[in-house]
């Protein structure tokens, strides 16, 4: 391998005539053709895959029906998008003005982000009654975190001399926010809003899964129940195209307002803490306690504030009693935990498989850039699909067993990991790559020694964010299709009005997600400390 051309720009010289869009288009056409052929030959009549031509025919046939449903879902998604993002911007502003509040805002935001959306659906349904209330709320819940975190990062991503300039005229945080941080964070805001577009659509659809009258989510459920393969695929395609359109449109608008491409962001870096280890543990424990207290307080206060009936709006004490204080508590705990174990037994392997395969795929694309250029835009597009909307398809394709779930969770983890790691690998400073080129180090050597350490933070950011997403994917699949695990348990409780059990499931799942997130953050600290200490500030 001739290192220099191979490492830096070899492939560009080999295919001088093909521009990037041509390679991408070729990739998409090849993908569609393969799909068509497989659907019409290998898997024909197996109730798994509909061929692209069948899907187009179905959309054409049901255009009026799908159009009405799409309008309903889109409206709910749009409202949720606006409310969720407005909340995120407000919260980020508060965190920027009151430095002490920032960690608390972040922690609470994470807890809310970890709420299992599916299970929140039925509770919201009882609160709001019929209509689009639950869809809007879920859409808002689905978007605000992915906007809040990039904004918080963006507010800080300014040279220190800019806030100093404001301070040198004796002005404080507010003026700094107005004159410096707000404008500087726009590319970050755009990145967040881009991810929020598909997320809002997903939230609205999940809301419709749990008892709405109209919308694409309702049609999805009907299509699954009647084993309408082409119909299920048609809805997934509509959801996907709409989401990608939102993603692209926001990116386009964002480019007009901020020069240069918006940065790809997945999560805030862990806040560096230079204090002594013992002290760090104490403040860490204090932070957890404080967050828990505030979260429970908010939970209780919200229910009281809206005067919600205790029959369905369970208070923290109800959940505590249900799990620990009643004669039946032992059995209750056993029921929740065994269902949880069943869910985790597929979620964890699926999550890890998604991470590993995503990481390896990104490395392969780095070694074979031509393949990467063909596949990366597709991966970015697929990342913006509301994958949950395709969960029914995967269940159709791979059956109701553990394997289907594994595929769902794995896919959901795979795409963000791939995109993040691919971006991270390209982040390696040019001079370092040049240095390896000077010594004629091979592509693999450069990858392992130089590029992978640079990509680790991006990988872990993706890994952290994928935890709640993986739990959500697993529970949605269980709720809709497989009839196993804690997702199914929640579906049962929702239909039998066993609200104590439902709330307990929500609490337990939230705790599991938060704990998983924290665990990944710990592993991240350890690995970065060990293999890439320069990445820790």
């Amino acid at each position: 391998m001739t290192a220099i051309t191979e490492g830096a720009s070899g492939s560009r010289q080999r295919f001088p005539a093909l521009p990037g869009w041509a390679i991408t288009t070729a990739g998409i056409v090849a993908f569609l053709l393969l799909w068509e052929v497989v659907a019409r030959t290998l898997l024909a009549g197996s109730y798994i895959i509909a061929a692209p031509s069948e899907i187009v025919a179905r959309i054409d046939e049901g255009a009026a029906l799908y159009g009405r449903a799409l309008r309903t879902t889109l409206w709910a998604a749009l409202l949720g998008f606006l409310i969720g993002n407005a909340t995120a911007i407000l919260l980020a502003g508060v965190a920027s003005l009151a430095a002490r509040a920032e960690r608390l805002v972040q922690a609470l935001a994470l807890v809310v982000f970890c709420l299992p959306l599916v299970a929140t659906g039925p509770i919201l349904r009882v609160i709001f009654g019929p209509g689009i209330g639950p869809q809007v709320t879920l859409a808002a819940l689905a978007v605000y975190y992915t906007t809040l975190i990039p904004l918080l990062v963006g507010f800080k991503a300014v040279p220190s001399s800019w806030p100093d300039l404001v301070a040198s005229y004796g002005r404080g945080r507010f003026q700094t926010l107005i004159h410096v941080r707000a404008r500087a964070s726009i590319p970050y805001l755009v990145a967040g809003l881009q991810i929020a577009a598909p997320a809002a659509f997903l939230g609205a659809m999940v809301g419709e899964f749990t008892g709405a009258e109209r919308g694409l989510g309702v049609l999805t459920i009907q299509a699954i129940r009647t084993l309408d393969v082409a119909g299920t695929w048609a809805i997934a395609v509509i959801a996907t195209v709409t989401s990608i359109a939102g993603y692209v449109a926001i990116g386009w608008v964002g480019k007009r307002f901020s020069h240069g491409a918006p940065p790809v962001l997945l999560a805030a870096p862990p806040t560096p803490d230079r204090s002594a280890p013992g002290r760090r543990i104490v403040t860490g424990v204090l932070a957890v306690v404080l967050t828990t207290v505030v979260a429970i307080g908010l939970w209780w206060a919200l229910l009281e504030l809206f005067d919600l009936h205790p029959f369905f709006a369970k208070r923290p004490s109800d959940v505590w009693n249900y799990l620990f204080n009643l004669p039946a508590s032992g059995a209750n705990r056993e029921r929740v935990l065994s269902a949880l174990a069943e869910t985790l037994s597929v979620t964890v392997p699926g999550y890890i498989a998604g991470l590993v395969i995503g990481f390896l795929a990104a490395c392969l694309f780095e070694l074979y850039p031509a393949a990467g250029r063909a596949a990366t835009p597709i991966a970015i597009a697929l990342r913006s699909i509301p994958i949950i909307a395709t969960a029914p398809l995967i269940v159709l394709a791979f059956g109701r067993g553990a394997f289907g779930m594994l595929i769902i969770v794995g896919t959901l983890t795979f795409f963000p990991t791939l995109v993040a790691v691919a971006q991270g690998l390209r982040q390696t400073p040019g001079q370092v790559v040049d240095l390896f080129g000077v010594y004629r180090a091979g592509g693999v050597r450069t990858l392992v020694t130089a590029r992978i350490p640079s990509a680790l933070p991006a990988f872990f950011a993706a890994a952290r964010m994928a935890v709640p997403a993986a739990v959500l994917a697993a529970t949605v699949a269980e709720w809709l299709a497989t009839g196993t695990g804690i997702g199914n348990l929640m579906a049962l409780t929702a239909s039998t009005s066993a609200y104590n059990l439902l709330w307990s499931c929500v609490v337990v799942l939230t705790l599991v997600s938060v704990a998983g997130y924290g665990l990944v953050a710990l592993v991240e600290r350890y690995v970065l400390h060990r293999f890439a200490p320069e990445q820790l500030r």
Partner: protein
Amino acid sequence: MPDHRLFDAEGRPRPVSLPEVRVADVTKRFGRRKSEVVALDGFDLTLAPGTMTALVGPSGCGKSTVLRMIAGLDRATSGGVTIDGQPPGAVNRRGEVAVAFQDAALLPWRTVEANIALARQLAGQDRADELVANLIMMVGLAGFERARPAELSGGMRQRAAIARCLATGPRLLLLDEPFGAVDELTRRRLNIELPRLWEEHGATGLLVTHSIPEAVLLADEVVVMSPRPGRVIARIPVPLSRPRNAAQLKSQTFLEVADRVAEALGVDRDEPGVPLQPAAAPMPAIPRIKLAAGGAG
């Protein structure tokens, strides 16, 4: 804009009211316990009204910290800073203090004009479009009023930053290595332009720099600091006449003063091992990547 020019039309000194800055017995520590760094220990400095003082010293001696404390950007661990007897914060709010930063600190989304106007906005003053236009002319940026910082060269950006400093009519000018990030040719050019601007504007001044010629050409007194913890080890007056001009760079006085400063700093010696700065930490294999962008920005 208040008129506190140092010289009248004939070049005679004018009596004006400019602030005296006192830094008294200041100690500054960074970090906690084991990793504690003492940047300054019992540091004293007085800036006489209407004079420019240059602060030179090895890297990390705390000279920028001194400037930041006078600017109200950092607080002393003990001891105090006063501007005409008042703490920095109150004075800053009236737009009487201006800081020039090493990286110009121009906001990239604002035009040159708007960046200069920002200072007046922050100081709570009116827009004064005419004044801004005059300043742009004075620093030689006429025709670039609507340009954004990205379209300017490094030297032009510093000129814009200096115009912004002067926009509020400050009585105290704090220059933190203002030309540290521009190339040597531009630096020499700006070194000749800056004294003229400062003399015309009139202000008490502090210049933090690494450059001995810059310090001597701009200042009335050069204060030399020791390595960390920073103390004053020499105060060298600069008996060059004002207004300063390029010809003075070749004068005997200039060369003598520059020699004395170099002597006090302990540079320009043949024997090795003069510890100018603490041994640098070994370079990591891979330069640090800003995590702020989520590792993928």
